[in-house]
């Protein structure tokens, strides 16, 4: 009896020991990871600081200088702001159009690509890896790369930006769409097949109705992202509000009222479409 008790006591002791050891090891690993992370952050920061034209500590004091200059000038010419906003409205519309057209084009391509790369739905099952890699490639190329190359060929304008964003969108949405497709029921597809529907008919009538709300939700989110992307590409040289911003900004003092007007327009647009897409996405996801 006494033996049994000591034995149990020893087992408990052993369990406790091994548990404590495990905890210690876990803490040690956690500590090492933490220390590594901190070291990476600090050394990374110092390196970035040393390779920057202006240092962090000398620049931090000036951080509000440019915004305050802009605000001061905009404040002086506040009566002009509404007029300037109207003046830049066409470029803003161009930026939104680039985003909308590229989202639509990209989404249409993504639908086809995703259907071709989903197991059970693909037209040529052997080609699934090919289409997947293709989407990976399209996703990996930053928009600016395609845009700059196309600007060289086509000249400055909205089309290079549209194509560049559409390619990236097709890759990004294609991946998300194919994840959605995987959850679609195959029964309607089989039903359609049994009555002799072609592949395109099976997809359009059997799959798309099931997944359309999710597609739309992802598409709206992408549209939001693409508005930002199209503004940035404009800054690099492909039309729209970004281009005007670059011009006004590089002109410097004297045109800060224009900078302020463009900032306001851009900010308002982004927030507006964020809210709009957020609202509809909630509605769509709620219905599903």
């Amino acid at each position, binding site marked *: 009896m006494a033996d049994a008790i000591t034995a149990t006591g020893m087992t408990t002791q052993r369990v406790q020991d091994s548990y404590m050891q495990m905890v210690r090891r876990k803490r040690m690993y956690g500590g090492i990871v933490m220390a590594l992370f901190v070291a990476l952050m600090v050394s990374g920061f110092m390196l*970035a600081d040393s390779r920057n034209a202006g240092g962090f500590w000398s620049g931090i004091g000036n951080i509000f200088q440019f915004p305050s200059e802009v605000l001061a000038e905009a404040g002086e010419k506040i009566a002009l702001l509404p007029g300037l906003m109207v003046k830049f409205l066409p470029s803003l519309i161009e930026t939104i159009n680039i985003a909308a057209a590229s989202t639509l084009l990209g989404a249409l391509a993504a639908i086809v690509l995703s259907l071709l790369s989903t197991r059970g739905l693909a037209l040529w099952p052997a080609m699934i890896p090919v289409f997947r890699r293709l989407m990976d490639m399209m996703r990996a190329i930053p928009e600016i790369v395609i845009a700059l190359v196309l600007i060289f060929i086509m000249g400055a304008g909205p089309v290079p930006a549209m194509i560049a964003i559409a390619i990236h969108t097709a890759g990004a949405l294609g991946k998300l769409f194919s994840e959605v497709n995987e959850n679609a029921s195959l029964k309607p597809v089989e039903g359609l097949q049994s009555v002799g529907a072609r592949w395109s008919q099976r997809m359009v009538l059997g799959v798309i109705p099931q997944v359309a709300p999710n597609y739309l939700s992802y598409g709206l989110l992408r549209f939001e992202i693409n508005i930002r992307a199209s503004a*940035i590409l404009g*800054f690099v040289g492909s039309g729209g509000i970004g281009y005007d911003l670059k011009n006004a900004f590089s002109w410097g003092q004297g045109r800060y009222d224009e900078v302020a007007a463009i900032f306001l327009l851009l900010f308002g647009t982004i927030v507006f479409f964020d809210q709009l897409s957020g609202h509809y996405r909630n509605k769509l996801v709620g219905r599903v």
Partner: protein
Amino acid sequence: MAMLDATMPREAAALALFRRKRLIAMAVPAVILAYFVYIFFAFDLPGLADRARMDNAKILVADSYSYKTHVTRDNRNGGISIAIEGEAKGAYAPGTAPDWVRLTGEDAAIITLPRDHRVEIAGDVTRVIVPGYGEIVLQPTARGVDMDLPTPDVPEWINAASNRVMITTDAGRISMTRARTEVFRYSFGWELFWFTLDSPFHGKSLGELAGLALSSERVVPERSNAGAMVHDVWNNQMWRHKDVVWAIFETILMAFLGTMGAALVALPLAFMAARNFMSLGTVRFALRRLFDFVRGVDGLIWTIILSRAFGPGPLTGALAILITDTGGFGKMFSEALENVDEKQIEGVQSTGAKPLQRYRFGVIPQIMPILASQVLYYLESNTRSATVIGAITGGGIGLLLTQAIITQKDWEEVTYYIVLIVLMVMVMDTVSGALRRRLIKGDGSGH
């Protein structure tokens, strides 16, 4: 009868639904089509065909896999020089030449071009032998260029003006002005990618290089052979491997610092913006609006504002990413925090834990997988953003790419950078994807 009455409205409703669905099925593609028609004209696509420079596209494609070597004769002072891409850093030392150029004298050379084309330079006189056509004799004069053709008509591949003659064939290009005669020969590949002409290792085969690397006889006295090879590749002036590697590293650094910094800043703020951790409604509201504001202002504007304060460089890019993503992270983290299970926190509290300990042991383990997965996702998408931001602020591979594109001649370098960028993004994708999968599968406890 009564049953029939009951089905009638249902049938009508079903038919109405069908009609509506059919209408939507027709209307959606029609609206999309109408929008594309509008875009077609708004973006002036018909005019684009005129503006598009297909010759630029041809140069771009040709340059991306080939390089040209310039053989130049100075028509004023005499003398022949040979340089890859016509750049000083790709110049052959005087008296040396690639195997298709035979230097026959101080001021004379025989240049063999593909498909039996040949160019013979002898002083001022240049003879171009085109198989199937004949011999063209070119000579600079005081007024311009004299040309003797074997046929009375000028063929369309010769562009002759009084002061300049250009002969463009598949074999290469020859141009003569009063100042100089130039012969361009295109060759396949990325020349001087590893060693430039001034390196003793240029032109050696892989086997020879391996042999040299192992031998103890030093080619360059101050370094071992392997060290000298690495040094020569690393300091290659033509392809600037050192700068490129630094630029890639800078881009990743921007993304890493920005993303991690944003997560660190956003976490405490998210606690203050979550309903279950902050009872003061005003603070919550203010923080939520701050997140929205920071996100709405967008990376582009933050980049511009910050580049004024900090100047161009990777730090500016990192800070721009940091500020923008603080908004995104703050929003997502606070949503995750509002969905935590209160029971675990109560459990930790019951052991007498102070608030900070409650957060550390009751909350963080619960949200850690979501948090880490979001951060990793942002890290990979920020690698792409950092390329773009680098192009704007002037740092990283984005800057190199825009510079190479603006000069409009080093397209092989542009191709090289694009390949590197795609590889960089794909590697980051793969690494972060693998880490995320491990996190989500995880050990369940989340510690």
